C-alpha cells in the first residue's frame, strides 16, 4: 500500500530532524491501513491550504456507553473516502501508564483489525487514544477490547478518565498511593464515567506530592496533591555531603525557600516546619538528604479548567489535609455531595469551578456541608459586601 501513497512534499519535510516524526508514524501505519493513507493525503491538503478538513463531530458510540468515542468525519469524503468516518476511541489507561509488552501487543492487534493503526500514547487527559475508525467498527473493537480487559474512557458531560502520577510505584516522594486511589475511584464511578449525566465534564487527577507531575492543579475539577503534616525528615550527614560536594546550599536551597524557614549553620540544617509551605523545593534539590514527613495524606483542591468560558482556573483548596486511606468512604460521600449540588444547580456547560464562583464559595460549602477554613482562601475578602444571614448574627458578636 505504501506504493500508492499520496504525494506529500510538505509533510515529508517533517520526516527530517531529531525528534520522532509523526509523519513517519502515519506512513508506517499507511503500509497496512487505507485510513492512514487518506489521512496522509488530507493532512497534506491541510498543510497546503492552512486549514483543517474535519467536520464538527457527531454522536457515535458503543452500546451501553454514553461517551468515550469522539465522532469525526472528513469534510472531503469524496476525495478521502477512507477517512469519511474517522472516530476516536478513548480507552481507559491503567494507573500510571504501566504496561506489559504482552498487553500492548494484544491492543495493537485489535486496532490493526479494526482501525487506522494509529494511536496517541496517550491523550492529554490520559486515555489510550485509538485514532480513527468507522462507526461500524466501534462495537466490534469494544468487544475485543473487553476480552483483554480494556474498558472505554470518558467523554462528554461525564466523569473523565482519571489519571495519576507513578507515585509510590517509583517515586520516593509520594505521600499517598496515587495509583491505588486512582484505580479505586475509577472503579467506584464506572457509571458516572460511562454515562454522561453531569452539567459538563468532571476530572480527577492524582499527584503524589506538590510537584504535581500530572498537572492536577491546572486541569482537574478535583485535584489531589500529596502532602504531609509533620516535619521534613532530614539526614544531616547527607546534607553535609551535598555541601561538601560543592552545593551552595544558601543560594540554591535556603534563599529559594518560600517559607523562609531554613537555616544551615555549617553543620546542621534546621527547618522551622511550622512555616514550611510544603513546596518541595528543598527536597527536590537534596533528594538524598530530605524527605517529606511520615504523617502523609493529600491536599484536595477543586475547580481547575481551561479558559472557556470564564477564563482559566487553577484548583483551590477544598480540604487542606485528608488522609487518603482506602476505602475513601468519606471522600466518596463528599464527591457525591459535590456532584449532587452541581448537577442540581449547575448550568449547562458550567464546570464546577465556574459554578462555585457563580454561587459563591460560602454557599457552595454550605450546600455540600463542609465548614469554611482559612486555608481555602489566599486572603479574606477585601470588599465590604457581606451577606449577613439571620441565624449568624448571634455567633459573630464574640469577635
Amino acid at each position, binding site marked *: 500500500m505504501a506504493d500508492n501513497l499520496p504525494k506529500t512534499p510538505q509533510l515529508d519535510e517533517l520526516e527530517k530532524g531529531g525528534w520522532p516524526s509523526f509523519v513517519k508514524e502515519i506512513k508506517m501505519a499507511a503500509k497496512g491501513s487505507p485510513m492512514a493513507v487518506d489521512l496522509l493525503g488530507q493532512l497534506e491538503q491541510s498543510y497546503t491550504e492552512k486549514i483543517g478538513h474535519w467536520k464538527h463531530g457527531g454522536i457515535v458510540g458503543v452500546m451501553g456507553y454514553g461517551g468515550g468515542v469522539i465522532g469525526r468525519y472528513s469534510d472531503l469524503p469524496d476525495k478521502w473516502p477512507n477517512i469519511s468516518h474517522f472516530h476516536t476511541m478513548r480507552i481507559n489507561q491503567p494507573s500510571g501508564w504501566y504496561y506489559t509488552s504482552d498487553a500492548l501487543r494484544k491492543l495493537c492487534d485489535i486496532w490493526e483489525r479494526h482501525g487506522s493503526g494509529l494511536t496517541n500514547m496517550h491523550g492529554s487527559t490520559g486515555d489510550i487514544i485509538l485514532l480513527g475508525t468507522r462507526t461500524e467498527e466501534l462495537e466490534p473493537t469494544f468487544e475485543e477490547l473487553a476480552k483483554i480487559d480494556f474498558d472505554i474512557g470518558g467523554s462528554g458531560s461525564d466523569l473523565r478518565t482519571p489519571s495519576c502520577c507513578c507515585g509510590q510505584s517509583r517515586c520516593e516522594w509520594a505521600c499517598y498511593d496515587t495509583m491505588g486511589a486512582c484505580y479505586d475511584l475509577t472503579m467506584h464511578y464506572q457509571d458516572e464515567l460511562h454515562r454522561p449525566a453531569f452539567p459538563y465534564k468532571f476530572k480527577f487527577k492524582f499527584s503524589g506530592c506538590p510537584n504535581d507531575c500530572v498537572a492536577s492543579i491546572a486541569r482537574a475539577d478535583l485535584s489531589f496533591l500529596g502532602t504531609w503534616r509533620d516535619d521534613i525528615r532530614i539526614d544531616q550527614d547527607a546534607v553535609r555531603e551535598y555541601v561538601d560536594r560543592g552545593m551552595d546550599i544558601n543560594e540554591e536551597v535556603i534563599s529559594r525557600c518560600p517559607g523562609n524557614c531554613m537555616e544551615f549553620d555549617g553543620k546542621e540544617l534546621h527547618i522551622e516546619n511550622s512555616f514550611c509551605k510544603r513546596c518541595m523545593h528543598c527536597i527536590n534539590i537534596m533528594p538524598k538528604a530530605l524527605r517529606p514527613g511520615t504523617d502523609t495524606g493529600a491536599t484536595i483542591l477543586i475547580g481547575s479548567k481551561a479558559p472557556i468560558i470564564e477564563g482559566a482556573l487553577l484548583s483551590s483548596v477544598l480540604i487542606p489535609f485528608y488522609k487518603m486511606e482506602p476505602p475513601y468512604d468519606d471522600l466518596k460521600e463528599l464527591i457525591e455531595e459535590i456532584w449532587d449540588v452541581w448537577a442540581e444547580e449547575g448550568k449547562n456547560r458550567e464546570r464546577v469551578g465556574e459554578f462555585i464562583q457563580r454561587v459563591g464559595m460560602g454557599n457552595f460549602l454550605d450546600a455540600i456541608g463542609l465548614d469554611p477554613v482559612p486555608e481555602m482562601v*489566599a486572603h*479574606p475578602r477585601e470588599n465590604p459586601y*457581606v451577606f449577613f444571614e439571620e441565624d449568624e448574627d448571634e455567633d459573630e458578636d464574640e469577635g
Partner: protein
Amino acid sequence: MADVQERRTDFGPPHYEQFLPPVIKENYGKWKYHEILKPGVMVHVSETGAKIWTVRAASGRLLAIDKIRTFCDLADKYCGGYFRFTSRHNVEFLLDSDEKIDDLIKDLADIGHPVGGLANSITAIVHTQGWVHCHSAATDASGIVKAVMDDLMEYFENMKLPGKLRIALACCLNMCGAVHCSDIAILGIHRKPPVIDHSRLNKLCEIPNVSASCPTAAIRPATVDGNPSVEVIEERCMYCANCFTVCPAMPLNDPENDGVSIWVGGKVSNARCEPMFSKLAIPYIPNNPPRWPEVTAAVRNLVELWAKNARKHERMGEWINRIGWPKFFKMAGIEFTKMHIDDFKHAGLTFKRSAHLTF
C-alpha cells in the same frame, strides 16, 4: 447683576509660601536627612546645615475655634506663629531651635493634646463624620476613635512597635478616608436591606438611577400601592447603602442591626511590599456607645498580637502574609466564617489556588 459680575470667585487657596517659616523658605528642597529625637519630636537637617525641629501633637481633628486660637497662641509663643497640620490631622509645631521643645510639650499636655505619633507608633485615626454630621452613618466616628485612642495612648506616646500602624475608621461603606488600605480599619456597616418609602420614592428619586446604583442588581422597578417605585430582592442585598446615597427614600439605618466590622492588613506606602487592601477580620460588632468596649478590645488584641509577633519594620499585613491567614485567625482567636470568603465580582481570585499550606 453688576454685583455678581464683580464678585470675586475662583481665586483659589492662599499661596502656601506666605505660611512657611523662614527657615523652610530658605531650605526648601534642600533638606538632607532627619532624625527622630524622641516620641513626637524630630529634626530635619538641611544641606546648608540649617535645622528645623518638629513637635507633633494629637489634635483630635474636630476642633472648636477656641482650640484653634489656643494653637495659634502656642505657635506665636514657640514658632513665630507658624504651624501646620498633617495628612492624618495631627498638628505640628515647627521650631528653629530645640531649646523650648519640652516647654511646648508641657503646654500641649496642659491643654490635653499629647505629643507622639511619629516613627514606629500609632498615629491619629483617620476618620469621618458619623452621627456628628452625616446622614449615612452606620455608627459614630468620633466616639469610637476617642475610645480606641484612649485605650492605645501608650502606642501613640512611645515608639516601641515593630513598625508604623495606621488605623482608620469610616462610618459607612462609602469609606471616606483611606480606610480600605489600613493596618486596622474600623468600618460602620448596615445589616438590613433598605426600608422603602414607596409613597415618596418617585418624587425624590429617579427610578432608573436607583436601579443602576445597586452593585448586586438587587433593585428593580415596581409599582407598589399604585406608586411607581422599586423593590429590593432581599437575598441579593448586602446593605451597601448605595441606593440610599442616590435616593433618600431608601434608608438603611437600624439601631439594632447597625454596627462595625474590623479589617486588617492594608497599607498604602510602597515600602518593602506593594500597597495592599485591608481584609475582613471581624464581620460584625454591635454599636455599644458611648465607648464601644468590644471594639476597643478587638483593636487592642490585634495591635498586641502584631506587636508581639512581627519582625522589625513588618507592618500588620506583611506579618500576616508571612505567617499566613490560617495562623492569623488562630492566634487572633477569631472564628473564620463564610462571610470571610469573598463572593463579589473577583471572588475566585481570592481562593487559595496552590498547595502552599502550613500545618
